[in-house]
């Protein structure tokens, strides 16, 4: 959610039950403006909170002018001091996929993972147990990246693509209408499109290239991995991801307010197909 409308966004996203205490909210308001100034970001988003056993991580992201460019991620333990996280790489994701369970809450904590590696010494090939140390920070980075790629959501029309390439925030976005807001096809994944080129020509003909340049949520697998609800009568539409439980996206139809926040344990729900 945008740091500029933090209080309102927190209020709207509070239906999931996970909020922030008043002292955290106040610290966020001040620290995020400082972050914006110091790092010279165009927009700062409060991404959410990953719950650890000992402490929680508060995550923020900074965006540059081009909305789909890779974002800088920062974390903090107390909402005042923010530290930059390294960008995620493929190796990181692979490496940390073996780590299961909750986050500890200590960024310097190291997970020990024993794996059997084939070592060859001379002519002998034998397996040796190697203990790999994985830092929690690495795990944090990869989890945030996975969540962003999988379930970050933006409504259709909130961003538009200029002919030169960069993606801008659409300042004339007045919000989705009520009928559009109830359909999953009006929401896009906030990431580089993956499925777009696989569409048939017929489908592409109906798309508006300046608005429909991202994948929609409609074709997510497994089907039904999004729960879409209207709260407060029809005044607020809330999307919750069932694949990463804790990700809440809210939008007030006919207004500009929208945003998503992740408050959860950072664990993917791999039982999803059985639970539906």
């Amino acid at each position, binding site marked *: 959610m945008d740091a500029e409308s933090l209080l309102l966004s927190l*209020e*709207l996203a*509070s*239906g*999931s*039950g*996970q*909020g*922030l*205490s*008043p002292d*955290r909210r106040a610290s966020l308001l001040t620290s995020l403006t400082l972050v914006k100034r110091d790092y010279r970001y165009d927009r700062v988003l409060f991404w959410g909170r990953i*719950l*650890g*056993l*000992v402490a*929680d991580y508060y995550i923020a992201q900074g965006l540059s002018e081009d909305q789909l460019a890779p974002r800088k991620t920062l974390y903090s333990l107390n909402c005042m001091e923010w530290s930059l996280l390294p960008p995620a790489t493929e190796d990181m994701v692979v490496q940390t996929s*073996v*780590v*299961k*369970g*909750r986050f*500890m809450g200590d960024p310097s*904590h190291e*997970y*020990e*993972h*024993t794996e059997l590696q084939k070592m060859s010494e001379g002519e002998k090939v034998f397996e040796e147990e190697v203990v790999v140390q994985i830092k929690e920070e690495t795990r944090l980075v990869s989890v945030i990246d996975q969540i962003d790629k999988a379930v970050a959501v933006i409504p259709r029309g909130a961003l*538009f693509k200029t002919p030169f390439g960069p993606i*801008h925030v*659409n*300042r*004339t976005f*007045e919000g989705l*209408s*009520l*009928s559009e807001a109830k359909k999953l096809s009006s929401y896009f994944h906030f990431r580089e499109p993956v499925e777009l080129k696989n569409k048939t020509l017929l489908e592409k003909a109906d798309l508006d290239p*300046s608005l429909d340049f991202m994948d929609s949520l409609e074709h997510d697998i497994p089907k*039904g991995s999004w*729960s879409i*609800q*209207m709260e*407060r*009568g*029809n*005044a607020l539409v809330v999307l*919750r991801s*069932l694949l990463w*439980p*804790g990700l809440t996206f809210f939008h007030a139809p006919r207004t500009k307010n929208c945003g998503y926040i992740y408050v*959860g344990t950072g664990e993917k729900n791999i*039982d999803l197909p*059985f*639970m*539906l």
Partner: protein
Amino acid sequence: MGDTPPDPEPRPQQPSSRRSSQVSQRRSRELSHLPPTISEEVPRIAFDDRVLQSGQGILASQNNFQDWSSGPLLTQQENLTMFQAEEDQLGGVEYPSLNMGFQPQPYLEEGGIQAARNTSLMQQLQQGQGSLFQQLNSAYLETQPNFLGQFSMYQGEDLQFNQGAPHGPYMRDDPALQYSPSELGFMPFNVEVPEPEPRELAVQNAKAYLLQTSVSCSLSLYEHLVNLLTKILNQRPEDPLSLLESLNRTTQWEWFHPRLDTMRDDPEMEPTYETADRQKGLFLRSGAAGEGEQEMEEEVAETAVPNVMETAFYFEQAGVALSSDESFRIFMALKQLVEQQPIHTCRFWGKVLGLSRSYLVAEVEFREGEEEGEEEEVEEPMEGGEGLDAHAEEEGEEDEEKVTDVIPKPMWKPPPVIPKEESRSGTNKYLYFVCNEPGRPWTRLPHVTPIQIVQARKIKKFFTGYLDAPVISFPPFPGNEASYLRAQIARISAATHISPLGFYQFGEEEGDEEEGGAGRDSYEENPDFEGIPVLELVDSMANWVHHTQHILPQGRCTWVNPLQKTEEEEELGEEEEKADEGLEDMEQEVGPPLLTPLSEDAGSLRTSTLAGATSTVPRTSTPLCQPPFSTSTPAARKSWK
């Protein structure tokens, strides 16, 4: 045949239909500025686009007055006639109204004259209408200059329509418009006003062009640009250039989607208004009740409604919170519940998120002696079922003696049904009411049976939000979503309701012995509790205790031997008795007694699976599909710390 017809697309568009009201609007606007709105008054004609576009000038002028003088049909015929005459007779035909279209209002009265001319023209209608359209363009272009010469009626204007100069003394101002000679070909015309300057003429022509509308679109470019610029000037956004495309799009959209009449109800907002009405009822009722009876004041101190706002405040400090207005609405809804049902104590248990809707759960105790009528209804069918089974088995035995060749009876007997616990004890200590939203009626959840708890431990399903939805899973769950919800609530309550050590104590009873783990199941608040410092509470888990009974693997809090023979079972034949003997050595299940500290929870010293870390924090035992927002009694629960 002449030039190829110009590309119709770039031409200014003509409307396919014009309502007379628009006609009058345009006309009145015309009065203010001279350039004619050439294409405005084209009525609905059954011509195709090409015809219309090619015959723009002719049509426009023709139809300007046709609307007023005669019906569209006549106009159509008139047009046909026009074109017909065009191709057959290049001369000698009068087209009096052609020029009239470009004249301001005063010339309208001459429609009567037109009618006379129309009849004469109609005679020519019979001639070869079929080939009309094909030759239209070329004929039109060719006869352009000839037309002008045919206006015998308006001799005075001939000055401006020199045949020799097809485009007249005025210059075509827009070089891009090569293909539409018609609109620009005709002069804006007013006998009373002297001939305008060429430059002014050009401006008027340009404006005329911009005011055109097309068959498919009733919005002219001129009007659209006016709207757009007005909007920009009114709103004065920053950096309007970057917004230009979006504003363009929205302005166009707004033209075609006018705001609904204020007298009409917006259908999309209906559910919002309904919800608001319902919730208004919440607020009003509480107000009315308070004002009605003065006696209520005495009972205020003893009201069962919990102070939701206070507990919400504490939870918010911990970072677990619903928004404050939602908490208030929940408070109102609980108040409503207390008024409707005979409730002794009530507590907001929490919120369970579902796929389509969520559940708000209230934990309730009825007053002493208030037996729930629904309970008995549920029990009766069960007893009836057991009686039938016994009867069927007896019949089966009789048959067996008579008939030798019989299908062997399966030896498998379903495991004995473990009776559920009495209300107000064990897992059924409290009653639970759920509703989807504050303002909706509260529904009571049935008591939970042990088999439901046992099965609920094995499955993991999302809640949909509808209490009567089936729970389709493997192993199959005996019940619908209401039972599953109740079972989950029971498991959560049993595992996670904790309080600081010493807050609750056992009541002083005479019979203090343990009965094989069945122990004490009641506690009371300790009046001498002084509180434990926060640091100690955080450091050691031994300072926290469970104050709900642990659920045994059997599914109950107190163990029951299912093999105890009831009276019905003793009537059964000998075969069943033999089968039973093998199972008699069932062990009594034992669970930790009440008020056990958290440090003795299973998993407190367990190492987590692959990460290799030792986790000394007790984990909540039940893996939950959706994180429910579960609260305990007044002591705030510290979960993640």
